[in-house]
C-alpha cells in the first residue's frame, strides 16, 4: 500500500515537472504558426464554418425558395442574388452555403467513423501482435485490393440514399490507411526506450498510455485526419454527382456542381460558384494537412 502511493506521488511529481518543459506540442505549434499557408488556411476554414453556421439564418433568401420569374439570373446586387440563381430560380448563394454545410458535416462525420475504426483496429493489432496482428493486417490488405467505389455505389442503391449511410459508407472505406498508420506507430512505440524507462520508473500503465503512447500516436493521426477530410468531401460529391448522394431538398457541393455542369452553357456561374467554393475548401484542408505534417514530423522537410 505504502509503495503504491509513493509511486503515485512520484508519477505526479514527474508529470508536473514535465509540463514545465517545452513539450513536443509546443514545438509543433511554433512550427505550424510559422507556416503562412497553413495559418491562412485555418483562418479561411474557420471563416467558412462560421459563415455556414450563421449566414443561412440571416440571409434574406432561403435555399428552397423558388423565384419563378428569376430563373438563371446572373450574379447581381439587385435583390442580393450575389451569386445569381439556378435553373429553378433559387438563390445560389444560399444554396452554396447549405451545400458547403452539408459537405463539411459529411466530412466531419465520415472522418470520425474512419478515425474510430482505424485507431481501434490498428491499436489492437499493434498492441496484441503475433498471429492476431497478422490476421488483422492481412484483412486490411485484402480490403485494399477491393474496388471500393463499386461497393459504395451498390450500398447506396441497396439502402436508399440517406445521409447517415453516406458517411458510414465513406468512413468504412477510408479507415484502412488509418489502421496501418496507428499499428505501425504502436509497434514502434512499444519497443522504445522511453516507454521501458517509464515502466522501470514505476509509472502506471494508464499513465504510460496517456503520457507517452497517445501523444506520439496522435501526431500522425491528426495529420492523416486533416488529409482525409478533403478526400471525404471529394468522395461525397462524387456520389452526389452520380445522383447517389444527398437528395433534394438537401444539397451538397457535389449536387450543385452536377447541376451546374448541366447548365454551364447558359449559366456558367452555377458551375463556377460551387466549383470554386469546393476548390477553396479542399485547398485549405490540404495546406493545413501539409503544414501539420511538417510541424509534427519535421524530419520530412
Amino acid at each position, binding site marked *: 500500500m505504502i509503495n503504491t502511493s509513493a509511486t503515485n506521488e512520484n508519477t505526479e511529481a514527474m508529470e508536473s515537472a514535465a509540463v514545465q518543459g517545452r513539450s513536443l506540442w509546443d514545438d509543433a505549434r511554433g512550427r505550424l504558426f510559422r507556416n503562412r499557408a497553413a495559418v491562412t488556411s485555418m483562418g479561411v476554414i474557420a471563416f467558412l464554418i462560421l459563415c455556414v453556421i450563421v449566414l443561412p439564418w440571416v440571409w434574406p433568401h432561403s435555399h428552397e425558395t423558388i423565384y419563378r420569374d428569376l430563373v438563371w439570373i446572373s450574379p447581381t446586387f439587385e435583390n442580393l442574388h450575389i451569386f445569381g440563381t439556378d435553373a429553378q430560380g433559387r438563390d445560389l448563394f444560399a444554396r452554396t452555403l447549405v451545400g458547403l454545410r452539408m459537405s463539411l458535416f459529411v466530412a466531419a462525420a465520415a472522418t470520425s467513423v474512419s478515425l474510430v475504426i482505424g485507431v481501434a483496429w490498428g491499436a489492437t493489432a499493434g498492441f496484441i501482435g503475433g498471429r492476431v496482428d497478422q490476421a488483422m493486417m492481412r484483412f486490411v490488405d485484402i480490403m485494399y*485490393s477491393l*474496388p471500393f467505389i463499386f461497393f459504395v455505389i451498390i450500398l447506396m442503391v*441497396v439502402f436508399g440514399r440517406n445521409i447517415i449511410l453516406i458517411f458510414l459508407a465513406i468512413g468504412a472505406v477510408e479507415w484502412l490507411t488509418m489502421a496501418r498508420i496507428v499499428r505501425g506507430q504502436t509497434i514502434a512505440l512499444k519497443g522504445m526506450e522511453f516507454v521501458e524507462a517509464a515502466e522501470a520508473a514505476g509509472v502506471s500503465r494508464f499513465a504510460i498510455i496517456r503520457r507517452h503512447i497517445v501523444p506520439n500516436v496522435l501526431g500522425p493521426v491528426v495529420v492523416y485526419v486533416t488529409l482525409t477530410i*478533403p478526400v471525404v468531401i471529394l468522395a461525397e460529391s*462524387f456520389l452526389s454527382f*452520380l445522383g447517389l448522394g444527398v437528395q433534394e431538398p438537401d444539397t451538397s457541393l457535389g449536387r450543385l*456542381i452536377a447541376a451546374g*455542369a448541366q447548365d454551364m*452553357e447558359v449559366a456558367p456561374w452555377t*458551375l463556377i460558384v460551387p466549383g470554386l467554393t469546393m476548390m477553396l475548401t479542399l485547398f485549405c484542408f490540404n495546406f493545413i494537412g501539409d503544414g501539420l505534417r511538417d510541424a509534427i514530423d519535421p524530419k520530412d522537410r
Partner: protein
Amino acid sequence: MLGYIARRIVVAIPTILVIITVAFFMMRAAPGGPFDLERPMPEEVRQNVLAHFGLDRPLHEQYVDYLANLVQGDLGPSLKFRDKTVSDIISEGFPVSATIGGLSILLALFLGSLLGAIAALRQNKAGDFAVMGFAMAGITIPPFVMGPVLALVFGLYLGLVPTGGLDPRYGMTAERLILPVVTLALPQIAIISRLMRASMVEVLRSNYIRTAYAKGLAAPVVIFRHALRAAVLPLVSYLGPASAALVTGSIVIEQVFQLPGIGRQFVTAALQRDYTVVMGVVILYASLIITLNLIADLLYATLNPKVKFEK
C-alpha cells in the same frame, strides 16, 4: 519468382470469391427488382419472366448456379437488354474505358515524372513552386469540375474539339478522346509529380550522385543515367493504387463526357437492378485491379535490386 506469382494468385482467388459473394447478396438485398417497371406487367407475365431467368428459385441455388456458370466463363444474360449477354455489354464498353484509362496513365507517368524531376532540379526556386502549385490544383480540383470546364472552354468557346461525347458513328478519334484523357490524367499527373519530386530530391542528395559529379561527369549524364533511374522506383509502386484511382475516375469521366464506357453501364445497371451486368463489371474490375497490383509489384521487385522474393 514463379513461386511468388503462384502464391499471389492463390491469395487472389479467395479475394475475388469474397467480392463476388458480397456483391451478389448485396444486390439481391436491394429493394425492387429488374422487372418492377413503372407500368407494372401482369403478375402472371412477371412470374414467367422471373422463371425464365431462374430468379424465382431460392437465393442460395441461384448463387451456386451463378458460380458454376462463371467457372465456365459464362456471365449470363443481361436482364434489361434483351438478346444481349453480359459479355456483349462488357465487350462494347470495355474498349472505350480501357483506351481512356490506358492513355491517361501513360500521359500521367510521362508528364508527372517530367514535372517532378524539373521541380526537384529547381528545388525552392520559381520552377519548383510553379510545378507544386499546379500539383496542388490538380489534386484539389475534382474531375467533375475540371471536365465540364475544359469542355466549356475548348469545346464551346474556342471550338477546338467537338462537344457532346463519343458518338458511335465517329468512333474514338483523337479530338474526341483528348479532353476525357486529359481530365482523367490531371489528378494523377499531380500526384505523380509530387512523388517524383520527393524521391528525386532525396536521390540528388545521395552520395553516389555527388561521386558522379566529383568524377567530372556532365550534368545531363548524371541526371539521366544515374538519378532518374533510381528516382522512378517509388512511382512503380504507386502504379497499383493509380490503376484503382483511374477505375474510379473513369466512372465520372464517362458520365461527364457521355462516353459509352463500362463505368456508366455499371451505374445504370445498378440503378436498374440489372444484377448480372453489375456482377460482371465488379468481377472484371476486381480482377483487373488485382492483376495490375501484381504486375506493379513484380515490376518494382525486378527494377529494385534491394527487394527479394521472400515468403
